[in-house]
């Protein structure tokens, strides 16, 4: 279990990564923005502001625990300990990428840390239940965590997966990131009740809502949920209030936001808040902080440099990996 300073460091790493991704993504896209242009084309969903969710939950996980993430996956991937260089190379679509350029930012897979994600909203729930079922069946004490946005909680897979998990007493934790919006649709317009965590009652499992984008409160709730799952007591549903600092995707004009809404979020930035807390409690010194800022900057720049120098795939590579060779199986 990592220390508070480590948590702070991880939050800074994610933030620095996302901010740099915003810049890298913008390369080649001005003066006229084109989604297809630049070294990083395609959609880009950034998670700056949502670091507490990833860090507060994943600090309780081991390498062998499973995480399934949604279309906005960077913070979860980094917190889970994904290979930052290969993740970045994948986002650049290069051969050194986790998927050699076939996946992209919504399709990051790193079996070494049991991480995967999907671009289909709600698609990560059933696989997490299946992984958790496998752990129970194999008498392993690993757990699975399915992360998804509040918008995903109205998808049928949410219901089917929570019911299955509760029935099977599967060691899985469902974490709903409530960042108030699903693209342009506010939670009140998509969700019939205020807190998805109350939907846990429909499955007879614990449900907890965590306010304030507070990494320590999140960590506390997650620690209980993970312990419960490891102890074979079954699933938990957590809903965590958080804030989206960028648009839904880069290029989103966000005309649908209320006046001052974005500023309010930015003002209650969880990272300076946590830093001030750590400084006040002498868990971090300004020098530590400076060192952390330097370290995360180096890590991110190194990953970006690694990605940039990795070769582009060859056209013929597009035809491989549709099917696995049958070596083990037969």
């Amino acid at each position, binding site marked *: 279990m990592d220390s508070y300073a480590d948590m702070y460091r991880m939050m800074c790493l994610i933030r620095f990564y996302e901010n740099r991704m915003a810049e890298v993504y913008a390369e080649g896209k001005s003066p*006229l*923005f*084109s*989604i*297809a242009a630049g070294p990083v*084309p*395609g*959609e880009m969903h950034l998670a700056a502001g949502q670091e507490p969710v990833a860090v507060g939950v994943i600090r309780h996980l081991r390498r062998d625990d499973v995480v399934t993430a949604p279309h906005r996956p960077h913070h979860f991937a980094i917190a889970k300990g994904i290979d930052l260089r290969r993740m970045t190379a*994948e986002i650049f*679509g*290069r051969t050194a990428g986790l*998927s050699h*350029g*076939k*996946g*992209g*930012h*919504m*399709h990051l897979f790193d079996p070494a840390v049991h991480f995967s994600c*999907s*671009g*289909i*909203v*709600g698609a990560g729930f059933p696989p997490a239940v299946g992984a958790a079922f496998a752990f129970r069946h194999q008498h392993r004490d690993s757990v699975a965590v399915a992360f998804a946005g509040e*918008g*995903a909680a*109205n*998808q*049928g*897979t949410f219901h089917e997966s929570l019911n299955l998990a509760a029935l099977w007493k599967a060691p899985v934790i469902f974490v709903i990131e409530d960042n108030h919006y*699903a*693209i*342009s*649709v506010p939670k009140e*317009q*998509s*969700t019939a009740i205020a807190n998805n965590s109350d939907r846990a009652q429909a499955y007879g499992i614990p449900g907890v809502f965590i306010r304030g984008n507070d990494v320590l409160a999140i960590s506390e709730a997650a620690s209980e949920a993970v312990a419960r799952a490891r102890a074979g007591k079954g699933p938990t549903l957590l809903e965590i209030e958080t804030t989206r600092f960028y648009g839904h995707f880069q*290029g989103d004009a966000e*005309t*649908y936001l209320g006046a001052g809404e974005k500023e309010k979020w930015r003002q209650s930035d969880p990272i300076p808040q946590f830093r001030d807390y750590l400084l006040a409690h002498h868990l971090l010194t300004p020098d530590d902080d400076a060192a952390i800022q330097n370290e995360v900057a180096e890590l991110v720049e190194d990953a970006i440099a690694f990605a940039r120098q990795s070769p*582009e*795939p*060859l*056209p*013929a*590579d*597009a*035809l491989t990996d*549709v099917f696995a060779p049958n070596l083990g199986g037969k």
Partner: protein
Amino acid sequence: MSTTTVRKLTMARAISEAIAQEMDRDPSVLVWGEDVGVYGGIFGATQGLYQQFGHDRVIDTPISESGFIGAAVGASTEGLRPIVELMFVDFFGVAMDQIYNQLAKNHYMSGGSVSHPVVLMTAIGGGYSDAAQHSQTLYSLFAHVPGLKVVVPSNAYDAKGLMVSAIRDDNPVMYFFHKGLLGLGWMPSDDWAEVHVPEESYEVPFGKARVAGEGTDISVITIGAMVPKAARVREQLQQEGISVEVIDLRTLVPLDKQAIVDTVKKTHRVLIVDEDYRSFGMSGEVAAILAEDALDYLEFPVKRLAVPDTPIPYSRVLEQATIPSADKIAQTIRAMMN
């Protein structure tokens, strides 16, 4: 009236104009889906409708595709004519039962007593590195199952007229607009799709292919975003003395078999170009029609250019290797002419 002046529209504007005019004409026409309201649709197909018609008729839904597509089944039996947007066709898998087992079959299963005048419009296509779950076309799947009309416009004029026909049709119509034809600005778009569009409302009939360019040496039979690509290749190859006829099928259901047979009678050589997966789809069906109904006119083996049965990869290089390009079309035609 401005019918005489040449007014060019992007395909996105042509679609939203068609919907707006039909909503004006018929109060039972409504629009719902994800981000179709204030946002105007992720691809602009509902731009301005919320402002014009309000939240009673232009409705943002939760991310519950089975729920809100299935809702169109019941709403249409009670007098509404919903236009429902499935943001990307790639997401059909979470709602396919309501689409193909209910919406598509109820008319038949009820012996004709129930009808569903519903338009399900959805974005298709790649070319901007949106990877395997956001770049597919998949119209062949919907053309395979009975009860759905399948419409795939290649330009703004057809887009408006086909949308008007779709809204007025008493059957479920799947309306596929290609992201690379919409003229969105933030997304690469083929400017050949931006053509003159009359202001007044008009219908483009289903089941009537269009000769997008006459030719005598070889026929390219295609649909959607591949039509302007093929038309460009046609002009290019004219310089090289190859006369290419380009057929825009416009709709897969109903399918204009006569147009397919007519063009091969003329050219005796056919290349089928498709942005869908190659096998068990549109390109196979067109080739089958040739082998059934035009065998004697086929002087050369049919060729197919389509996505080579791989998911659409993310990397620009890899994606370009899977989606048929103008260059590949030209090369294939040249090879077929030798």
